[in-house]
């Protein structure tokens, strides 16, 4: 393994984060605060507790998920798309790096940033609502796995995209709706039966549910189902990337 090469990419990408510290960290924190003011303090007080969890506290795991899904995808997709766009990718491709090493560098950095932001959002939330984390291990497990998986997906989008619009397309048209409809702000069990069934097709439901379970021991689906699903998503993402790299898809002409 070319560890120094991986480290160089990882470091470069993290450097981008520190350089743009304002938009990297301030903007998710600000939007989380806004969510808490609106849904937690203003509206939340009029919404009854869900499964005995006050609404403000109920939405914390969903908000963290909402943030890290978006951050993972946009960071990882931008991280690989930008060098393709400017042409600096030549150096990565001509370096003695395997595809696995390239992925570890880029996806590792994007996922690290997401985990970091997730933790910051959690700390911010703690100022607004009483919070407890009953299963810190599982909480971290879901945080890290989701960050990695969606960074992998972001990486795929960054290789597939051939313009800046496409870079926004999937997050905007697919990921945001799935996240909002994935039980970030409500419990799937509150839905009429038909829509509950439809929701089960939404992968984000399993992530939010598992994550929320690690906080309050209460989820829409069982922990085992959530663990199984996140593992499946990771595997699928890795399989797609493996195919892309084996065929040189859009990287090596």
């Amino acid at each position, binding site marked *: 393994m070319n560890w120094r090469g991986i480290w160089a990419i990882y470091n470069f990408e993290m450097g981008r984060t520190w350089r743009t510290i304002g938009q990297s960290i301030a903007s998710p924190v600000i939007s989380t605060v806004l969510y808490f003011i609106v849904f937690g303090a203003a509206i939340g007080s009029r919404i009854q507790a869900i499964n005995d969890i006050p609404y403000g506290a109920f939405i914390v795991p969903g908000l963290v998920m909402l943030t890290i899904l978006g951050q993972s995808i946009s960071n990882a997709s931008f991280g690989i798309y930008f060098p393709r766009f400017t042409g600096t990718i*030549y*150096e990565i491709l001509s370096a*003695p790096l395997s595809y696995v090493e390239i992925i570890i560098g880029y996806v590792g950095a994007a996922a690290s940033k997401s985990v970091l932001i997730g933790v910051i959002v959690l700390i911010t939330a703690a100022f607004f609502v009483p919070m407890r984390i009953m299963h810190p291990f599982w909480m971290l497990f879901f945080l890290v796995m989701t960050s990695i998986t969606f960074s992998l997906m972001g990486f795929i989008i960054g290789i597939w995209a051939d313009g800046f619009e496409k870079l926004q397309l999937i997050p905007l048209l697919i990921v945001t709706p799935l996240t909002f409809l994935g039980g970030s702000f409500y419990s799937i069990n509150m839905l009429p039966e038909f829509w509950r069934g439809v929701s089960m097709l939404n992968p984000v439901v399993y992530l939010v549910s598992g994550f929320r379970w690690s906080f309050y021991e209460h989820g829409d689906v069982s922990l085992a189902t959530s663990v199984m699903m996140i593992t499946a998503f990771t595997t699928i993402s890795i399989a797609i990337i493996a195919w892309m790299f084996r065929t040189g898809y859009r990287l090596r002409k």
Partner: protein
Amino acid sequence: MPDFMPDPAVNANAITISALYKTYDNGFKALAGIDLEIKRGEIFALLGPNGAGKTTLINAVCGIVQPSSGHIRVCGYDNAVQYRAARSAIGLVPQELTTDAFESVWNTVSFSRGLFGKPKNPATIEKILKDLSLWDKKDEQIRKLSGGMKRRVMIAKALSHEPQVLFLDEPTAGVDVELRKSMWAQVRALRETGVTVILTTHYIEEAEEMADRIGVINKGQLVLTEEKNALMQKMGKRQMVFTLRDAIQAIPPALSAYGLALAENGAKLIYTYNTHQASHDVSDMMDVLKANNIRPKEIDSRSSSLEEIFIELVGA
């Protein structure tokens, strides 16, 4: 670290390319059977018109383009199978000025060294930056540098991991004369340290000035590879243009052996000959001219440049 097998290729060529083909997805045949050997320590210039396949050839060697078929060895290592060892040996300065605008010069050059798996070595980077007169700019963001400096940053990046083979794809495009001269000096200095240099260029005088050997590529095929001096000898022509005191209508039969031509309505007489065929003697010819009462007022002498040879070769 490179997981190459110990291939005792000490005496191997810097580059060995055999039967290399590349057809792009859109059907464009960029390379149509390239065989090429480049010896260690050479400066090799690759010449060819736009779209001839120069950059595709370089990118195939560097691992950026996947060849359709054929084999490439770099310092003895197969660039598909032993890609780590092969790519470690190469430094590439691409044609386009592509840099990370917001990085500092020092960071971007250190980044390149890391990518190639080399341990940090500030002394080496310092030397590279000083040699390229970039030292006082080391903390500047790249976007604040001039075009010529960006070009030098790219050279510094390519040299950061101390490659044995350096590819320069149009290194002096858009670079002023002074900087071009200093780059040439640097390339020669690199060769002194044993680095093999392969450059493509549009400035044929550059190839003429720099190269030990020249390859001409056209439509994806190597038209010729030749020692520069041999090429100049073989194909180089000289011309003498006699401006006549009185114009003549026709060349007298006595002069037919010299292959003369008339120009400007007989006001000029052009004598074309090969530099290294001493079969004709100008003083003999002058005697014949005088005998026929043809009197030159002025004589211009010129030799054909590599550029003219090149145009003749690619039929441009």
